[in-house]
């Protein structure tokens, strides 16, 4: 890349307000989730009994109020954010990795047996109904559920549709003349992937990744509401589950559900904004114009 990484980031910050908003909120949430959560007292690490007074509204000592069992919602939510984010990013990463490998190979070798076989596999996974199978799997593995296992389970279905799109994009790019030039320059398939295909699929990959993060967070909530997960680990889903099960809203104890939802909304919004602004920045056409401008400005000095 001609411009350095710092140049790109400052460019983004200056010109894309959605990026600025998203990255700031995301950094705050990351700090909360991965920094501040480390200071959580031992009583507030898992859902259970705590030392605080039951169900009190937000005060100075308990900024988000307390649970029905006397735990500080603030600390629990910082851990919940951490776990949900880990879950989301892990699912996103695994799904995108599988989608890229499967989709690229299916697209690159689409006029051969390998391509047809992979395409069949991709289509099968697209068609299998995700939610019922996920619930069954979650129920079957009930004893072994952790953040990591949920990610793995979600990835089984997360990769299929992005993979299909990837295949179409790769098949489109196959027609480009410079792919032929690379082939007759002796480049291997991997090198062509890096240099010729990646610049064009990168923005899409990022959108998919961040979209999958949000999707995973949402799916986790779904599984949790059904109760088919390890209900003692604080996540956004389990927080909603317990706040609902203890009927806190009916009892007028608005703080538990409200703060959970506010944090969730901010999390998903920030991820969304970062994704659209980066992908707009990396869009091949705008990128080319930027490179050309910088070259002309450089040459005219």
């Amino acid at each position, binding site marked *: 890349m001609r411009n350095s990484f710092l140049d790109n980031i400052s460019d983004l910050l200056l010109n894309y307000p959605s990026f600025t908003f998203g990255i700031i909120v995301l950094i705050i949430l990351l700090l909360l989730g991965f920094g501040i959560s480390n200071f959580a007292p031992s009583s507030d690490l898992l859902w259970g009994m705590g030392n605080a007074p039951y169900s009190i509204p937000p005060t100075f000592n308990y900024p988000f109020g307390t649970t029905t069992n006397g735990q500080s919602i603030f600390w629990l939510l910082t851990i919940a954010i951490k776990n949900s984010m880990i879950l989301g990013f892990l699912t996103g990463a695994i799904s995108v990795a599988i989608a890229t490998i499967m989709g690229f190979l299916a697209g690159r070798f689409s006029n051969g047996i390998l391509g047809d076989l992979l395409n069949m596999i991709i289509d099968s996974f697209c068609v299998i109904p995700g939610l019922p199978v996920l619930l069954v799997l979650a129920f079957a593995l009930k004893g072994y559920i952790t953040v990591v296992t949920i990610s793995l389970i979600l990835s089984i279905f997360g990769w299929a549709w992005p993979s299909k799109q990837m295949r179409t994009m790769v098949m489109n790019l196959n027609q480009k*003349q*410079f792919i*032929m*030039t690379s082939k*007759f320059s002796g480049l291997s398939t991997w090198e062509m992937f890096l240099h010729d295909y990646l*610049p064009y699929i990168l923005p899409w990959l990022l959108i998919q990744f961040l979209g999958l993060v949000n999707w995973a967070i949402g799916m986790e909530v779904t599984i949790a509401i059904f109760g088919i997960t390890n209900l003692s680990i604080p996540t956004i889903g389990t927080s909603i589950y317990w706040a609902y099960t203890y009927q806190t809203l009916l009892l007028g104890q608005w703080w538990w559900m409200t703060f959970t939802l506010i944090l969730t909304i901010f999390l998903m919004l920030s991820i969304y904004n970062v994704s659209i602004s980066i992908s707009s920045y990396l869009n091949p056409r705008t990128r*080319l114009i930027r490179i050309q401008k910088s*070259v002309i400005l450089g040459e005219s000095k």
Partner: protein
Amino acid sequence: MIMKLNVICMSHTKEVKEMENLLEIINVSKQFRSGLYLGTNFKAVDNVSFNLENGEILLLVGESGCGKTTLSNLILGILKPSSGFIKYKGKITSKFRRNEKRSFIREVQPIFQDPYSTFNPFVRIDYYFEEVCSNFGITRSKSEIEQKINEVLNQVKIDTEIKGKFVHQFSGGQIQRLSIARALLANPSLLIADEAVTMIDASLRVGILNILSDLNKLLNLAILFITHDLSVGYYMVELSERTKTVVMYRGTIVEEATGENLFLNPLHPYTRQLIESVPSVDPNKKWHSAMKHAVLELEEFNLKGCKYSKRCPFAMKICEEKEPNLFSVEHSRVRCWLYSDTVDKSIALNKLKKNQ
């Protein structure tokens, strides 16, 4: 033409004997389906045969839709023939083993029509040159790579620095030269130039054609030169020693000849029309006759008889019924009933005399 089947040796070009067939196209056809549902099949390339010898320049001429691009894709291996086969150095290309495939993509190099899509706009130009050197085992040491790059740049007459530069920093003509330089670096036996100068400004074409002709003479480099412009073709024939011209129309070969014969003595009515259609740079020499207007391309592909019969001013009854064979006439071969010994062509010949 005597075709020799030789013992295959995919080694260095200079070891292959002279006057042997580098590329053989044998009864190649390619069928496509047009239209999504109720589409028709048509043959973009219909039973085409010709040979390209070592160090020879073969001009493939025809208008868009005649099948020349399909043919070049078939040769490069992008498409597979529906019937017939293509032989490179005596071996059938669709049956290549792995190492033969690797040799092929080094020895046969393409030059594409659009300079700006030949190279990836996000990649440095010199990256391609470095890759050619290292991937084809030409050399690995940095200094030798630089030396080789300078050599080929010299051969294409580029004197500006290319290090670290991208495609859009060069003009179209420069990129075509760079494209040739990149191909040269691989030490090829055959260049496939598909409309290589069509998108270059008319005044700059000559420079690139000179380079190609020099390379052909210097390195005994065979070139398959595809073009729709006969004046460009004639220039290449004029400059070079061993050339052959093949004219295609709607997927079939209508005329072929060696050297200047086709240009100075065109036989097929279509070839004549092509030559007449070259705009003269003398304002006093303007076109006389108007053309018969074309019907839909697809209809012409599926004609029972001669594919040119709908546009031909000399079309006879037999032309619409039966496709002519390839007749040998002096230095040429023509696919036209006007040159058959057995057909009654008195009416048509009268028209011909009137025209001349």
